[in-house]
């Protein structure tokens, strides 16, 4: 086929020379990724963060191709079938993401990895393209996603503590968010890759590039992924979807849009054809309609969302987490005093804990818990923390932040922030 050139802001030219890759990109299911933002609600904090899963998926495939080419250049034998499986898995690894990814998953109880496999194996255009190439290809690609593929190093390349997925999203997110600390040298990491047993190791010459990558991951976690404003905005969106779902179940959801009915009715059991119709724009359209809902709470939450009237974030001190039950009760009482109904106060405050966040930074647990990044030096292989003091100290850092989120205003727009902060402070003091 005639090579197809994609101009990518992170990797510059990405040249597609394989017809099945181009056909996959042209499918309805893959094109849908253009409508799903990579960072969900982060744009509320960093307005540049508008990139989508479409570009990330192509970038991931590009890095996978480079990784395979590096391994071949050092003598690793990779047959055409394995390469095809690896490239396709990299391209399709996020195909099952729903609108606003993790928030949506939380509300409907779905799991994007399961939907990725459903789309690869189900009655879809993607499945058809894969089958036309090789009847067994859908199963092989799905087995990479579910980490059962026989060539484990391919699974490592796509999903481990140092993989092409993370490498692309750190660079891409950093570029679009506009921060520089997510940057590192991907070419040096890729050039240092080799196979050890069934997994991937990095030659010692690439140690500093990997250090840089781990630092980037750490900074991006704190500055972007776990940013308190973004997390608060996610909570607001989650509450909107929960309220809409509740109203649907009570047969009280006015301004309903047909495309969302299977979400509320069947949740994770919805038909694949209905699932692939969903994207971020559908949810935003629904919110625009619901801002005029008859339901006071839904209407109020949607207006807050569209006006960027965010919850106030208050960082709780770890030592005071024990008092949290009392603090929550006091907040509830206060909100009721300010006009919120007892059954609805739950939509106006919440706590965010680190385990709610899907991103993480590099950690080393015990042996057999999570594969570490392996470094190869003079015939010996060991964890990166053996070679790098900076990573050793970073991997040992266990820092957690707990945020209490609450509304700044009541239904009438009266500012109640100071009142609420006052009772939280009293609660923290054990009163």
């Amino acid at each position: 086929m005639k090579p197809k050139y994609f101009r990518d802001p992170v990797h510059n030219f990405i040249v597609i020379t394989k017809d099945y890759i181009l056909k996959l990109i042209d499918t309805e299911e893959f094109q849908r990724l253009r409508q799903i933002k990579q960072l969900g609600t982060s744009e509320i904090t960093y307005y540049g963060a508008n990139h989508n899963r479409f570009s990330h998926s192509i970038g991931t495939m590009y890095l996978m191709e480079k990784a395979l080419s590096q391994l071949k250049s050092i003598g690793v034998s990779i047959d055409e079938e394995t390469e095809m499986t690896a490239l396709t898995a990299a391209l399709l690894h996020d195909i099952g993401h729903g609108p606003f990814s993790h928030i949506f998953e939380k509300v409907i109880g779905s799991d994007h990895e399961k939907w990725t496999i459903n789309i690869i194996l189900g009655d879809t255009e993607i499945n058809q393209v894969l089958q036309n190439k090789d009847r067994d290809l859908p199963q092989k690609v799905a087995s990479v996603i579910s980490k059962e593929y026989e060539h484990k190093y391919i699974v490592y390349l796509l999903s481990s503590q140092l993989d092409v997925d993370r490498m692309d999203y750190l660079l891409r997110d950093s570029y679009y968010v506009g921060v520089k600390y997510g940057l590192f040298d991907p070419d040096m990491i890729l050039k240092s890759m080799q196979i050890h047993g069934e997994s991937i190791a990095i030659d010692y010459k690439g140690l500093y590039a990997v250090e840089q990558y781990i630092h980037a991951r750490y900074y991006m976690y704190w500055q972007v992924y776990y940013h308190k404003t973004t997390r608060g905005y996610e909570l607001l969106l989650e509450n909107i979807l929960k309220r809409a779902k509740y109203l649907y179940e009570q047969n009280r959801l006015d301004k309903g849009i047909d495309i969302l009915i299977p979400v509320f009715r069947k949740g994770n059991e919805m038909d694949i054809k209905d699932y692939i119709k969903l994207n971020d724009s559908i949810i935003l359209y629904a919110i625009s309609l619901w801002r005029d809902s008859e339901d006071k709470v839904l209407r109020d939450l949607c207006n807050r969302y569209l006006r960027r009237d965010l919850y106030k974030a208050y960082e709780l001190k770890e030592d005071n987490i024990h008092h949290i039950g009392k603090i929550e009760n006091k907040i509830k009482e206060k909100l009721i005093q300010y006009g919120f109904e007892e059954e609805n106060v739950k939509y106006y405050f919440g706590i965010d804990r680190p385990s709610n966040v899907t991103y993480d930074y590099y950690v080393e647990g015990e042996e057999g818990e999570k594969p570490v990044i392996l470094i190869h030096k003079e015939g010996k292989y060991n964890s990166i923390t053996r070679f790098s003091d900076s990573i050793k100290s970073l991997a040992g850092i266990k820092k957690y932040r707990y945020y209490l989120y609450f509304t700044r205003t009541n239904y009438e727009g009266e500012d109640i922030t100071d009142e609420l902060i006052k009772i939280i402070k009293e609660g923290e003091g054990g009163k």
Partner: protein
Amino acid sequence: MSSFLKNYANLIELLRISGKIEGRKKLQKMVYILKNLGADFKEDFYFHYYGPYSDVLTIELEELKSINVIKEDVKEHDNYFPTYTYELNIDDIGVKGDLENYKEVIYRLNSENSRFLELVATIMYFKEEKKYEKEDIIRKIKIVKSDKNYTDEEIKRAFDFLETIAKD
């Protein structure tokens, strides 16, 4: 009860019943097996290199440690990777889980080692979530756990073990 601490109720209950659990990997596999038997655990698991694994559970343990609800004993080893032992630090923090029906299973799980529980959890994953037949499960175990060199006897014992805990 605080809605916040409620998230950890059964994890705390598991430690209360077990007394001590030696090994983070072991704890992971215990929670996965109990969850699949029907116990109320909210943590999502996905298939990892060492069997079903939950990132959320790992962070929850760190959280409970950081707020002093659980105690973590770290034992350093020559092979560099430490092992972690967990037990409750504060007995009553106002949360009450419900694992009363799983007490016997918990005792049995806690008396096994993590290598064996890794095998049991992996078989369970293939059986319950992937709906594979027994022959396929054995074949898959040999692929995904090739580095572990599980013997036929171990695999048979794991299948038998699963049947007996399902009956408990």
